[in-house]
């Protein structure tokens, strides 16, 4: 009969869950959507190599390359961000937005390949890169 007492306490304490789309505050270090900074990217494709979910695709053609990210396939493991030596990738600290089609949040960038900066010097501002962003 202890369970009835427990249920009564639950009823009196009120609900502990939230109605959608309300959400609890995110914890520190929450891994959300991956953000790409085309000014910093050197096109090393390490992120594609580390992405086991195949959410990041990388296609190189001559001096150009196309970097694309599909959040619908992403497991938000953060391995791409950890492996990016140029700090071109970051992750949002909030939940991804609600989307209704599979590729609604897909982003892709076509950039000019550039040589990575020397390790002793800080990364350039990326003014020389021609970047084009397209949302599919």
């Amino acid at each position: 009969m202890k369970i009835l007492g427990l249920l009564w306490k639950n009823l009196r304490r009120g609900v502990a869950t939230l109605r959608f789309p309300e959400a609890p505050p995110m914890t520190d270090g929450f891994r959300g959507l991956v953000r790409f900074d085309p000014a910093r990217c050197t096109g090393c494709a390490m992120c594609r190599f580390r992405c086991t979910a195949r959410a990041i695709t990388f296609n190189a053609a001559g001096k150009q390359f196309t970097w694309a990210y599909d959040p619908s396939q992403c497991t938000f493991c953060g391995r791409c961000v950890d492996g990016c030596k140029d700090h071109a990738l970051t992750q949002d600290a909030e939940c991804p937005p609600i989307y209704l089609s599979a590729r609604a949040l897909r982003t892709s960038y076509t950039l000019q390949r550039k040589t990575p900066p020397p390790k002793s010097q800080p990364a350039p501002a990326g003014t020389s890169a021609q970047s084009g962003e397209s949302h599919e």
Partner: protein
Amino acid sequence: MNLLTALARFFIFPGLLFAIPAAWLVLWIERKSVALLQQRIGPPFGQPFFDFVKLIGKSTPARPGVNGILMRAWPLIAVSASAGAVGLLPVLPTHGGFQGDLILLLALMEIPAICMIVAGFSSRSLFGEIGSAREAVLLVSYNLVFLLAAVSIAVSQHSFRLEALASATATPWRYLGLIAILICLPAKLHVNPFSLPNAEQEIYSGPMVEYAGFELALWQLSHGLEWIAGVGLVVTLAIPPSAHLWLDVAGVLFLGLLLVLAISIIAAATARLAIDTTVRFYWQCTLAFAVLAISTTLLMRLRS
């Protein structure tokens, strides 16, 4: 009861037109009350209706090796039988019904469970077959008690006519039988602790595992109508008729709500029982209760 009255009772009141919204309301009350008891916010008002509409819009994926016509037929038969059972309930003090309609009501209330059993076997899914086997054992367990209790009520009033039972003054033996029926209701409605045929976590809802879209919507509707038929049977037989119609209506609604809440609290407070424990519960504990009800009724009848 002429054909027109029968059709009106089946399609309008207390049949489909009334019973379907009432079924959604009861399903919502059950889900919401269980959620509140578990400190969850629960579904918004009308969620079972939205679920129904959503499921109607979804297509059923191809099921190779499964007889599609049979799979579509079972939920349709279940809904029809449940609606027919609700239509037979003596909720209005009219001269509807016919001699022996209690037997028809009990038969119609059994059909959805039987449909669920054959649907599980028709699906050719391992989980469906396990769920169907469990449902068959559960059916055998609680039905002995359920039918004995129903017969004891009928014998106590010397009639198998629902209208006569509802309008007659209730005897203490009738309440004994109604309590036995109440004990069987959670098993009939597959709620905890007797939810083992459609256990979601163990066997993926058992017989429902291969169902989707419109067919699943029909199963959910049939489940809601079973709630109305089961609770309605107890309520209409428990409340003595009064001179005022509004008093009867208020009494039926109040007791019905109370029963739904009581079953929901039992569902929230208990865990799922294993099949052998369930059988033991009904055949060892509750059967004595039903036998007592029918033997007392028969003895009283012999004395009178």
